[in-house]
């Protein structure tokens, strides 16, 4: 064949060794390179050395982890950015033909998880297992009661919400409305039960985000402080605890008798700031009960 054209010696082959490694030599040149390599230990060793260095380089560069919350921040950016224009028509069509109940936002939050009771429980379990036990209490109720909830299209009136929540806790409605941005509508306010525990639970929703204020009465001996959780925000009168898992950010504090959680898919700092702003009033309200 054309072997005579490519009579590699060590020097010329070394010049083209990277191309050979990249599989970018013409077929006949590659063939000739292989026959040289078959007989030349030095060039084979050099080839091996380059191959190994390349995979080392790959490993070193790729061992760098992404910072925590970078993905969450990007998702938050996307949600606040406008949907790509060409889709707006596609969206409208989809909405017209398929009844999108419960919101694509929620399916998106859960990574297209199917909403069966079993998968719901296993989802809650898998998410919760990676955060401290006392934080799980609030997260479980949020996912069970808000994330999986089919909210009505229009938010209920304050009167309806008050009636459902009961007069005892109705002051919380006012506190939430005062602090949560107006694009969030109060969709639900009730007392609920999850895994044998009672909660006061208020949920707010914007186009694609959910916020829950979840309050549980403390059982004997329960305390963030006793569990040695480290407060996220220390320069505050009320110590604030934080956990983040997947798209959920939890900020919590405790009173003598209650555990109070703010859980959302907002950015971590925003979730913290919102809880920080509300905490004194919520705390005062609970202690007046």
């Amino acid at each position, binding site marked *: 064949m054309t072997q005579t054209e490519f009579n590699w010696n060590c020097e010329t082959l*070394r010049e083209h060794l*990277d191309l050979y490694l*990249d599989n*970018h030599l013409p077929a006949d040149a590659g063939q000739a390179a292989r026959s040289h390599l078959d007989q030349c230990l030095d060039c084979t060793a*050099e080839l091996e*050395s*380059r191959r190994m*260095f*390349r995979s*080392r*380089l*790959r490993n*070193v*560069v*790729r*061992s*760098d*982890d*992404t*910072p925590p919350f*970078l*993905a969450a*921040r*990007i*998702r938050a*950016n*996307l949600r606040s*950015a*406008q*949907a*790509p*224009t*060409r*889709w707006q028509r*596609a969206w409208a069509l*989809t909405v017209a033909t398929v009844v999108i109940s419960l919101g*694509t936002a929620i*399916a*998106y939050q859960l*990574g*297209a998880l199917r909403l069966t009771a079993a998968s719901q429980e296993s989802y809650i379990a898998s998410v919760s297992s990676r955060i401290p036990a006392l934080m799980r209490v609030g997260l479980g109720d949020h996912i069970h009661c808000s994330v999986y909830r089919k909210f009505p299209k229009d938010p209920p009136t304050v009167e309806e919400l008050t009636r459902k929540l009961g007069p005892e806790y109705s002051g919380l409605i006012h506190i939430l409305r005062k602090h949560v941005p107006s694009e969030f509508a109060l969709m639900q306010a009730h007392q609920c039960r999850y895994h044998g525990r009672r909660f006061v639970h208020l949920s707010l929703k914007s186009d694609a985000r959910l916020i829950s204020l979840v309050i549980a009465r403390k059982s004997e001996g329960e305390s963030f402080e006793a569990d040695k959780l480290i407060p996220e925000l220390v320069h505050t009168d009320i110590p604030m605890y934080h956990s983040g898992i997947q798209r959920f950010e939890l900020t919590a504090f405790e009173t003598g008798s209650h555990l109070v959680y703010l859980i959302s898919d907002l950015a971590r700092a925003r979730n913290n700031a919102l809880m920080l702003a509300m905490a004194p009033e919520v705390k005062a309200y609970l202690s007046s009960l």
Partner: protein
Amino acid sequence: MDNNVSQFPQNNATNSAALPSLHAGLRKDPETEGGPLTAGLAPEQRFEIEAMPHLRDIFQTATRILGDRNRAEDVAQEVFLQAWKSFGRFEPGTNCRAWLFKILFHCVNHHRRKWFRFPLLKETEEFIEANLTYVPPIPEQLTDEEILCALDRIPGDFRAVVLLVDVEEFSYKDAAEILAVPIGTVMSRLSRGRKLLREQLAAVAQSYGIGKPAPEGMQS
């Protein structure tokens, strides 16, 4: 113009204007891309499935190009925001990873004047021509830090092709498309970039006294 640059990373409007043609020419990659599998999904879900898994690669490459993790975070956010804004024009089945890298280098080029660690090619060309006669062997004992340090020391344009081809394992053709340069340019920068990297590695190794001795004329 310079005002725009200094507003980074908020000045997205300038960038997105130039984005429509970004995916032109990128190979279809049916093995790894969604195609018909994700065709029926909502854009958010498609983006989640097709684009978001590449965040780590984008961030790592940005870190090595910019030499700074904070800046890399900003740029990664910008890349995904740009990608989202033009995702409507992204053809399902096109190589999404390559498309994201193309946006990455688009963003980097847009801001590169600010970043002295990414000098323009003509400033470094002479230096390279003068230094490429001898190619030292790759030292055997190197720490991760030494490897990264050597990589960071080679000029940005060369570092970019080494990262794309040797680390991210793009083909020459995809690398050319991503960097918007001819394939011949990719090949020559790659060859020089690899040689420069080996020189830097040899220098590092020598300074620790672990490398093989340099050839005659290079020893001090």
